[in-house]
């Protein structure tokens, strides 16, 4: 459900950018979404479709770039890439790992006219 709040956050950023840069329309919006960001991408797409109506980004193409999940292994001390929070350390097999990254939710850039 909070994808709607995220979409509203995206619209705020776009509105601020529109005021600062003076563009008419956003044609493409590129987002970076971490694997552990808790974002359901189809839900975010749906929310953006609704929330961006009437804004300079109405109808813009939305690209979502996946960022990998990273975690610190408490046993071997390495920062490793994992696909799932519950995965063991791929280096030593330990289950004691703490996510260190992959919770990003960013607007990377946008193409405007």
């Amino acid at each position, binding site marked *: 459900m909070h994808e709607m*709040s995220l979409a*509203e956050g995206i*619209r*705020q*950023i776009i509105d601020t*950018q529109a005021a600062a840069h003076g563009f008419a329309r956003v044609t493409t919006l590129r987002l970076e979404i971490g694997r552990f960001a808790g974002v359901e991408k189809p839900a975010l797409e749906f929310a953006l479709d609704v929330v961006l109506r009437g804004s300079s980004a109405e109808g813009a193409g939305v690209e979502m770039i996946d960022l990998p999940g990273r975690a610190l292994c408490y046993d071997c001390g390495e920062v490793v890439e994992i696909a799932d929070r519950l995965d063991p350390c791929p280096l030593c097999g330990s289950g004691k790992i703490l996510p260190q990254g992959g919770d990003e939710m960013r607007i990377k850039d946008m193409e405007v006219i």
Partner: protein
Amino acid sequence: MCTVCGCSSGPKIDGQTHAHSHAHEHDHAHSHGADHDHDHHHYGDGAAGVSVPGMSQARLIQIETDILAKNNAYAASNRRVLTALEAFAVNLVSSPGSGKTTLLCKTIEALGGQPLAVIEGDQQTSNDADRIRATGARAVQVNTGKGCHLDGHMVGHAMDDLHLAPQSLLFIENVGNLVCPAAFDLGEDAKVAILSVTEGEDKPLKYPDMFTAAKLAILNKIDLAPHCDADLDAYEANLRRINPDIIVLRVSARTGEGMDAWIDWLRAGLRAKARP
């Protein structure tokens, strides 16, 4: 007066009537009708932005902005206020029905004369704030409407209304939801996840985001454990699997078992906020 958005919000504490309507420079304009004689904040209105026409040359704008930047700015503002007051704030997160409000009522009793205040988040009703106020504590209810979580802005306004005393404890009882509140920083010092023994030992594995974000987990209703074959060690093992650093306290708010450790943890947090 909200220091971030600049909107003014009148006092809405202890049954005072207020009526104002303000459109913020950010997305959700919210308004309060004159028929309000209770101290609620209502949210859930939709977007109302503006678009600015301008030049028409295709170009790429680098943004690299966190989608939650706005929320994070509100949270940072709340954190500054709390730091200035040497106040310690906890964001209580859990499923609905884990016993948050009962735990809070018992916590307030156990804390005696400690200055404290409570922000209650629910989609509807002021039932929880009413229960807190029955203990004599100050409480403000925030109704999120359709919203599934509290955000930094709602909490900032609620904090304005509470007029926190220096060295207060602030309890923020989030909407009962183990998913969305994990992503929204409110400016708190710690998220505290409450998990009751009837919920299943694998709950931390099913909802990892929240338990990763929490500093402390309270395993509540342990008086019921023998009646529902709950394996408390399995709960703890699963919590540590998700978050090796998490502190786990076994508590029964009903019988009082384990409450001392919780109260000690809160007092230690408060002491740590004191300026030398």
